[in-house]
């Protein structure tokens, strides 16, 4: 722990090298954007950027919990697509019905993941891969592979398209609330301690009498619920249930979590840094769009993929200098 009387910056940086990197990179990208583009810091870009990334922050938060236990959830993208269709069907009854239905659907799929992993002892990677395929298939089946229009007459679309006080989109306010709740849960509750303990050493946790299985069930249900909420935002923000969306979201979420310094083997990680990781990856996209808009370079979607991969590479290079020593290499324990 830090010595309160004498704040040693170097020691602090060394102790938190995984998470400080992401904050510095985030600050530098924001500074770069502010200096280079006129409208970068404008209210419009600010709110649309946050609004668009609300979904990714949400699934990254759920993913963070799963990864903290040493697991992985590949199903989040498909779950979001599935629940966006469910929410679109429920939209005529208003947000007060559609939102709980969407979240509940996500939680149910998460519980199914948990059952596969805890009850049938199937490795998380395979179990969630299967529910990924299943949820994708399910979304296409119930929607007939078409986008499902939402009901504009209800208050459903306000969630994803309008802002409170003209600045903060409703979606991002909800995400902020979820993030704070999850941060408190992880850092200041006994359940959070157990999550970290399970990721640190599952066997040791079992021997200490912690309920490992229930904790695992919880994190997958939580991840499913977050993905479900993201699906509600998707339907609300884009005005349609999107059965074909969500491809690659799980990898974006994993990338956000890892860029935020969380160890994939579990046990070490933080909620704020995960949000910073998600914002960082989103910001790369945002800046590339501005660069396109300026017409200085013709940045095709293809180049954007290349640059995003390169950026992930750079962040990983930076982090591996901070994380040293032998580590568990297997992904499934």
């Amino acid at each position: 722990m830090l010595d309160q009387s004498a704040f040693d910056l170097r020691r602090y940086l060394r102790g938190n090298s995984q998470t400080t990197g992401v904050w510095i990179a985030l600050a530098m990208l924001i500074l770069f954007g502010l200096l280079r583009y006129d409208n970068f810091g404008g209210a419009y870009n600010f709110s649309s950027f946050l609004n668009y990334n609300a979904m990714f922050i949400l699934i990254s938060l759920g993913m963070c919990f799963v990864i903290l236990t040493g697991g992985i959830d590949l199903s989040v993208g498909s779950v979001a697509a599935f629940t966006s269709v469910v929410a679109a069907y429920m939209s005529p009854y208003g947000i007060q019905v559609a939102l709980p239905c969407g979240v509940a659907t996500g939680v149910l799929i998460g519980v199914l993941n948990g059952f596969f992993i805890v009850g049938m002892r199937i490795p998380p990677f395979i179990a969630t891969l299967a529910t990924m395929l299943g949820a994708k298939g399910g979304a296409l089946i119930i929607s007939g592979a078409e986008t499902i229009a939402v009901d504009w007459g209800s208050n459903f679309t306000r969630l994803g398209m309008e802002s409170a006080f003209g600045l903060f989109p409703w979606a991002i306010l909800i995400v902020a609330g979820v993030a704070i709740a999850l941060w408190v849960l992880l850092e200041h509750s006994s359940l959070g301690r157990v999550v970290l303990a399970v990721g640190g050493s599952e066997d040791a946790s079992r021997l200490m009498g912690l309920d490992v299985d229930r904790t695992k069930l919880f994190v997958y249900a939580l991840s499913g619920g977050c993905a479900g909420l993201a699906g509600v935002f998707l339907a609300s923000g884009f005005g349609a249930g999107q059965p074909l969306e969500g491809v690659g979201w799980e990898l974006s979420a994993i990338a956000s979590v890892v860029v935020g310094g969380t160890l994939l083997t579990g046990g070490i990680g933080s909620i704020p840094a995960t949000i910073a990781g998600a914002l960082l990856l989103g910001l790369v996209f945002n800046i590339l769009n501005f660069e396109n808009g300026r017409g200085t370079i013709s940045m095709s979607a293809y180049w954007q993929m290349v640059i995003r991969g390169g950026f992930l590479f750079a962040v990983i290079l930076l982090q591996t200098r901070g994380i040293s020593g032998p580590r568990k290499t297997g992904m499934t324990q």
Partner: protein
Amino acid sequence: MSTTELPLASPSRTYASGAGFVRQHGSLIALALILLFNVMVTPNFVSLQTFFVNISQVATISIVAVGMTLVIATGGIDLSVGAVMALAGALAPLIFTSEFAQAYPVLGLTAAIAVPLVVALGCGVFNGSLVSLLNVQPIIATLILFISGRGIAQVLTNGNLQTFSNKAFSYLGTGKILGLPFQGWLVLALAIVIWWLVHRTLFGRYLLAVGGNETAARLTGAPVKRIKIGAYVICAGLAGLAGLIVVAINSASDAARIGNLMELDAIAAAVVGGALLQGGRAPVFGVILGAVIIQLVRYTLLANGVADEVALVAKAGIIILAVYIQQGRKD
């Protein structure tokens, strides 16, 4: 095995001998059931045409899955195989339709096969180095090329669909030896070579040892880092080869579609075939059996008019069932 299981967690360990038989031969039983179902239900299943279609489909999955198995045997995973396929598949037509290749057809064709394979092997070096030299977790290390590899392929081709007619190159995808598709023979040859590599060479010995218990392998003097890089390089090389075959089959190359979702099929084939995600096993012929099962299930559903999306759900069920059945084989 390195997996430490608490005895209370697996009550099903002492299974009756009947259940034990199912666990040991689950994939063969599944294959027999699928074949029986098809012979009885699917129209025109017993025909040479159907047989050839399935062989050429299963060949690409098999080639990628065998490479994936080597990586999985080290306790890793390779998400980038689809992107590497796209990269290799996009490069080949660029080379043999170039002016150089028009002037020197033989040299051009050789380059069209060699250069994409070398690039693919380079991708493997990149993945393997990240994993073994920088200690990056495999899923993250290969995520980089998963994201950007297809992008590079699309940048190279400007995102255009390349169509071509090149008899010599198309042999990779449409050629026949003794009346059977060339890829079928290729898979057989590759499987034998890789089986030999795993079970009869020092590399194979070390590969399984690294996956079984990395620390123990290091202590006994295995060159762990080089072994791991080797696995990723072979995996990427095979993915590159599969990319060439897909392009040759279609006489067209679309960087956006080559090898799409192949990483999932390959992983599924590997686990259905008996590979353990924790590492330590590389059942080469089992994995090819897994690829056959995955392909046959898809074919069965499509040929019987079941929609593609339902086939996805079925595939999910098969993966869960296959891994569940294997839980008892871990010992």
